[in-house]
């Protein structure tokens, strides 16, 4: 009998305990850890954090592209803006290194190229980040967020969206418009008639709103202000050849524009100051992507990480983005110190190609624009403050020849020894991170755009004045030799003292000045396309010489195809994923 009691108790106990567990409904509710729910962020701090996240998308350093570091995805567009324009060769250890970039250098990009997919994803990720802010902002009921702050957040987000779209227009051309209201992402880039949609009005609307709404002075130097929005709006007009609107706006900016600390826009005294950490975000800065060597080491100038030369900071690096002979020759000046847009390639600036480091070498003795030596590292000229650039030791991977990349290395994206010693650049893993910002637009750029408008619809003299202003600063920016006693080369920069003979001559001069001032900064290809001269320049001027110079990079058959190569193809993945009822809603760019 006693046993039976125990048995009953045992049965009851075990099944009661089971009952407890099965009744405890939340046993199966296990929330994820270490992440935020959207509802936790619908407040002032959260929405501003989302805006910071939208800014963080500007550097293109997202989980895509090379080794998920995000090389070649940023707004500096060293691949799409510079290499594709003949300003530089791809470089790398050898031709096979990051071979996907070769097809961009050779204007033969297949829609399956993973690099363009990375760039596309980076842009639409950036657009999505801005849209997230715009979508969640109305949901924030936090009384701590004032209406004025609300407007600033909205305007900054719209500026960022327009900025990303601007790049998307430059690189890919026919892109559809995605805004914060979208739920179904299968949006066509064509209208009912099958023609590509024009999203310039959308970009203009975002920039116009930002221009109208943004404060002039912002509490953080990284934020876009009213005049940055104005400058990009004017640039958008210019890209659509709306010279009148552009000129009017440029005039206002030149007369009233200030950076977001309230400083009147002006050129920095020395050209090089645009590429130094200490002088960034100065009066010449219109908009910069802020880089930082923070504790994570991942918010530095990642796009530059494979482009540093040997011989600095004890590191051997990856030798990408190597200036072309064409860009170097462009800095030759004539007896008056003026550029030679038609004849600059008649003579090569001498390089150390085929001369061992141990053999004596005399740098080019002809007249040069000193901006060359702030743009390109060449033998016999001090390399920033790292000492003398000595040749192969700077430019070739150990044991490799310079066949693939050529005898030059870049400078504008490279940190100085002083910056390195100050802890503003360091080796993070196998690569360097640096706090050097990328300046997306600076005042000299704006002056030269204004000059274009003046030539087109205004005063050629005013245009000449703008160009001379830029050249005057160039003339005052010599590179000194190692002991600082004399100029490192025969620099001679003159001003355009006589009026230009014709509109064509004026345009040629303005265009060429832009090539020199902004060389290797990722703008030129888009300018060439905008001016309609990409095929003429590449096929007639650049390629024949480049092919003779570096035959393995440009075998016969390599050429720019007008009507097709102006834009990268839309990545095949995007087109496949756009399928709706078996039909792609995204139409490929012409010619692909």
């Amino acid at each position, binding site marked *: 009998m006693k046993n039976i009691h125990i048995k009953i108790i045992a049965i009851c106990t075990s099944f009661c305990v089971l009952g407890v567990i099965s009744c405890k409904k939340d046993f199966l509710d296990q929330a994820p850890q270490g992440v935020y729910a959207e509802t936790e962020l619908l407040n002032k701090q959260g929405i501003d954090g989302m805006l910071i996240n939208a800014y963080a998308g500007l550097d293109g350093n997202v989980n895509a592209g090379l080794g998920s570091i995000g090389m070649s995805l940023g707004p500096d567009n060293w691949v799409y803006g510079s290499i594709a324009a003949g300003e530089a060769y791809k470089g790398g250890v050898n031709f096979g290194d990051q071979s996907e970039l070769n097809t961009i250098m050779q204007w033969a990009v297949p829609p399956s190229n993973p690099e363009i997919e990375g760039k596309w994803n980076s842009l639409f990720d950036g657009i999505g980040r801005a849209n997230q802010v715009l979508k969640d902002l109305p949901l924030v009921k936090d009384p701590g967020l004032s209406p004025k702050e609300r407007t600033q957040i909205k305007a900054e987000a719209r500026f960022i969206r327009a900025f990303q779209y601007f790049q998307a227009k430059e690189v890919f051309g026919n892109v559809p418009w995605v805004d914060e209201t979208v739920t179904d*992402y299968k949006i066509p880039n064509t209208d009912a008639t099958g023609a590509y949609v024009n999203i310039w009005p959308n970009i203009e609307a975002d920039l116009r709103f930002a221009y109208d709404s943004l404060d002039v002075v912002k509490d953080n130097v990284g934020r876009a202000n009213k005049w940055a929005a104005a400058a990009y709006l004017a640039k958008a007009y210019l890209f659509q050849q709306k010279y009148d609107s552009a000129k009017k706006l440029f005039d206002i900016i030149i007369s009233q524009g200030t950076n977001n600390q309230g400083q009147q826009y002006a050129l920095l005294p020395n050209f090089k100051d645009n590429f130094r950490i200490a002088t960034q975000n100065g009066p010449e800065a219109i908009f910069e992507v802020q880089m930082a060597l923070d504790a994570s080491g991942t918010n530095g100038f990642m796009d530059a990480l494979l482009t540093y030369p040997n011989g600095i900071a004890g590191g051997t690096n990856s030798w990408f983005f190597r200036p072309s002979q064409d860009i170097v020759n462009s800095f030759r000046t004539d007896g008056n110190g003026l550029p030679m847009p038609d004849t600059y390639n008649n003579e090569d600036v001498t390089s150390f190609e085929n001369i061992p480091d141990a053999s004596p070498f005399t740098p080019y003795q002809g007249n040069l624009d000193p901006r060359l030596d702030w743009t390109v590292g060449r033998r016999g000229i001090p390399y920033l403050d790292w000492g003398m650039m000595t040749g192969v030791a700077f430019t070739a991977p150990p044991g490799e020849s310079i066949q693939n990349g050529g005898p030059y290395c870049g400078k504008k994206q490279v940190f100085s020894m002083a910056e390195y010693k100050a802890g503003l650049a360091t080796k993070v893993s196998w690569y360097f991170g640096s706090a050097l910002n990328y300046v997306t637009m600076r005042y000299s750029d704006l002056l030269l755009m204004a000059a274009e408008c003046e030539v087109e619809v205004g005063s050629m003299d005013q245009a000449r004045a703008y160009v001379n202003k830029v050249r005057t600063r160039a003339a005052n920016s010599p590179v000194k030799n190692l002991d600082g006693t004399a100029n490192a080369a025969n620099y001679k920069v003159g001003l355009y003292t006589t009026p230009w003979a014709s509109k064509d001559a004026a345009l040629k001069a303005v265009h060429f000045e832009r090539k020199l001032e902004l060389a290797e900064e990722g703008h030129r290809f888009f300018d060439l396309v905008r001016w309609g001269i990409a095929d003429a320049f590449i096929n007639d001027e650049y390629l024949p010489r480049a092919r003779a110079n570096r035959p393995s990079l440009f075998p016969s058959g390599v050429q720019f195809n007008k009507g097709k190569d102006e834009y990268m193809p839309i990545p095949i993945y995007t087109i496949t994923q756009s399928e709706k009822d078996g039909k792609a809603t995204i139409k490929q760019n012409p010619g692909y």
Partner: protein
Amino acid sequence: MKMTFLLVLTACLQASAGANAQKISLSEQNASLQSVLNKIERQSGYFFVYRNEWLKDANKVSFNIKDAPIKQALDACFSNQPLTYTIINKNIIIRQKPLPPPQTPAEESEVSRPPLTGSVTDSASGSPLEGVTIQVKGTATGTTTDAEGRFSLEVPDNAVLVISYLGYTQRQIRVNGKKVLSIALAPATTGLDQLVVVGYGTQKKKDIIGAVSIVNTDDLKSAPSSNVVAQLQGRAPGVTVSSSGDPGSSAIVRIRGFSSFGNNSPLYIIDGTPTTNVSSLNPEDIESMQVLKDASSASIYGARAANGVIIITTKHGKANKTTITFNSYVGVEQIPYSRIPKMLNTPELVQYLSQSSDDSYIDPVFGKKGSFTIPDMYVVSNAFRGGVSADDPRADPDLYTISDYYNIYQIFKTSQGTDWFRAMSQKSVIQSHELSASGGTDRSTYFLGLNYFNQDGVFKYTGYNRYSARMNAEFTLTSYLKIGENMQVSYGNRKGDPTINGETSAWANAYRSSPFVPVHDIKGGWGGSLIGGTAFGSNPVAQLYRRKDWTNKTLGAFGNIYAEVKFLKGLTGRASLGIDAASQTVFQPSRKQYEQAERQTYTQLTEGATSHFNWTWTNTLNYQKTINNQDINILLGTEAIKNTGRGISAFERGYDYETTNFLTLNTGLPQTLGDIGASNPVTGTSTLYSYFARADYAFKSKYLVNATFRRDGSSVFGADVRYGNFPSFGVGWVLSEENFMKDINWINELKLRGGWGEMGSISNVPGINQYSTFSSTPKNNFYDISGANTSTTQGYGVSTEGNEKTKWETTATTNIGIDALVYDHWNISVDVYRKNTKGLLVPSLRNGLEPLVSKPLINLGTMRNTGIDIQVGTQGKFTSDLKYDISLTFTHYKNELTKLNDQNTPLYLAAGRLNNVLLTTKGQPVSSFYGYVIDGFYNNQQDVDKGPTINDMPVQIGSWRFKDLDGDGNITPADETVLGSPHPDFQAGLNIGLTYKHFDFTTFLFWNYGNQIFNYTKFFTYMGVLNGGVAKGKLYDAWTPETASSAKTPRLGVGLDNGYTSFVTGNPNSFYVENGSYLRMKNLQIGYTFPQVIVSKLKFSNLRLYLQAENLFLITKYTGADPDMSLISGDGTDQSLGVDYSGYPHTKAFLAGINISF
């Protein structure tokens, strides 16, 4: 030590056994029989064989003899004993005298009968069995067989005899008036009455309907390994296994193909507690292992069963049988160097350079092209890097320094060809020592085991060791209550560089290092890649050395406690609480390197710790009833599982000393930017709550029916869809029991089985899948909005998109099987199956216009596996001394993805630096190889003109011509196609065991046939993108105008003469894809078991010595180091199978071992 001692002891005793004595002189008064026997043994040189307990009941003896023959002495001893003796050669076998007939009721003993006589033999070998207990059922009457297996017993005509013997299946025989009986007993291991552990209980083997492979655990343990699942390869049909040879690493096990393309690992149940990792389990502790492969057997595990279930039961003590065993082996392992791909030596490298560099090329080491010479020495410094003669002032040893890592001056003797593979590897020792004790009484049993395992890596400065202790016990408290526990505590430590795969592993760096670089410079500093053509390969020996202090330690406890209550006759309740807990710590100092092109100029310490604690609470109620000829068994149960985990990982940089003792997370130099970091690898919590039931019904043991049902609820799914139901049913028909089969003599047993059911898979769903979340990580979400340059502001970004509707992957399995025993000793088992997975979890694809957030998994795909598993075994004897035991397993599966997503967009994965190497798409098996097909060479200008062109670009003479599949005259991505599959057509294992007298011989052959391997190591050795070492084939098989017809690889040259165009080096093609078939002798063992007479003399019950060779030979056409690749994944998912990123070669091993039991 222990082993040596035993060996010496054995030798001494054998010597004494040979001592010469015949006549016995003894004078004894009331002496114990034991002591007298000892004296006789000493004087005679004869051995006694007996059980100790018999002598306890012996009477005292008294006698006096002088110089008598031994028989007289023995008669004197045994005259008044319950014991008797037999002399065989020099052995004296002592037996118990048959028990006196019991007092029986007068009615039954009216007539005195002549005794029943008979013999008992082993059914397989036919040899007589001694000591078999024969008992009249329901009485105490009984006897045991003698040495010849004979017995005699007086029994009534209608008696039923119960014949039992340890290790054999018990039989009951009706006497039916017979006077002579010949009884064969079958060993329990093959017996159909063998109890097999299945889901939540046991079943007689003959009643099993599902596809269950019973693994012979002795075979498994015969090979040395820390990890028992690695040894499953070829041992169980339906189970495919791949393992790297790396010490301490786990093996990849797949049961019946792939039911998803995430994680397809089976569920392991050890003593009722689930786990995903069995690597800490000591193989010697395993009593039995079953693989549940189909729904009838496995779907009782519901949502976790789709990948198969492996049930492991650890050893338990047996009542009244105390056993102490000692098992030990020591061996040497080495890399089979003959398998390693051949690389150019230095003179060959120079020859290669002269063919592949342009005329103006100046090599820093070998000089100007046209006059390349191999210098005596070369120097690496900031000021000068290049070859010099020995008497060159730049080779002055006084200039040497490596103290400043930025400013080194190293002087090297140029190597004529460093064999980096030999330089980085070593012969290594593997050893295991295990001591266990088991036993018990009627009321309690125990098993205690201790194991030490140590394996030095074949790569220098690596290794693994493990200590484990097991304590299993069971107590019968009352007639209705039993409690018990199974518990293992283990500690393991992996030492050294754990990178076994990929281009930064030491083994890959051996491919990537140049032959002219010596391992060390003239003063012992490391050779490296700071000079000519060496590019980025880092010295693999230096890499291993610098990581020698890396440790990865795991301390774990695993087991359960349980209670069993017998409520009523046949009704048993059982509750079990299992735990799986472990903590792991990682210590990885990363030291400065001066010798590498991409050098590290700081010391970094990474330390991490993770821990998990999982519990499983299972309650079952089991009812068993036999009514007439019907067996009914019903099981009901509930189970709750909670898995929790947490971890941390941090690093710091900047140490002024590199000694291990100094390196802690807080002894780094004052922090500068980017030198400290922490991450918190949260593993989170997941829970599962389930109900389940099973019913088995057997009619006359002839018609079998079984059904199971399980309902699982899981926390990883959204609340609306988190419960899933998994039913199964099966039927079995034992044809051989039917009358119409009785006449077919050659069929002993025949059973048909069939079953259908559904199972789920849960391991591919991250807990976060249902939630949309924001994250805040510096790289993705932070921005320097204030322009501070050294700090950033926190931001929040969407990181995952959730899907609350995602639910279980369900795999429906149909299985038809047949089990047969024919011609008395041929066991054949065949299963054919079809597995259809629906609701396959596939990543929802991001639209190209969406932000880069992690997309949720959705139930979109479908997948099908079909296959056949065959097992054939036979045992018998060629002669009375030469016996055999042979078993063959055969595994074939065919995997096909039948739907991937609505857009039918294939999934492509990169392999290393090559994109789109692996394809997962509809109509193909998961993880197919993809790329361009090589279709000869462009041999001349006509070929070039004929095309095809490549991406509209002209092509080079001497380069590969690719197949223009779409015929448009141009090679584009449209010409890529499937190049091969990592899935073998079949795998087969053949185990041959032979015994001759006391010798035994075992060999195990494994045959893998019909898969391809993507040999990515060729990217290092042929494509030249990363420079470094060059394969011999690149020089000797290269295209030249003369060798156009026999060439295998592109032309060597410069510019337009270079056949290695960027298209060739940048895209996957058929050159990488190789035949992965192989035949390997995995194991060869020869053992000697000492005769019982000697063993008993030593007070052992068993003593065996053996010698063993592992991986003695390998036959394959594969040119990489090892073809055992098919399941090794590059990224941990099953979408990236079969790529050899420079795989760790399996080693050859030679071992000696000993097994002792007391």
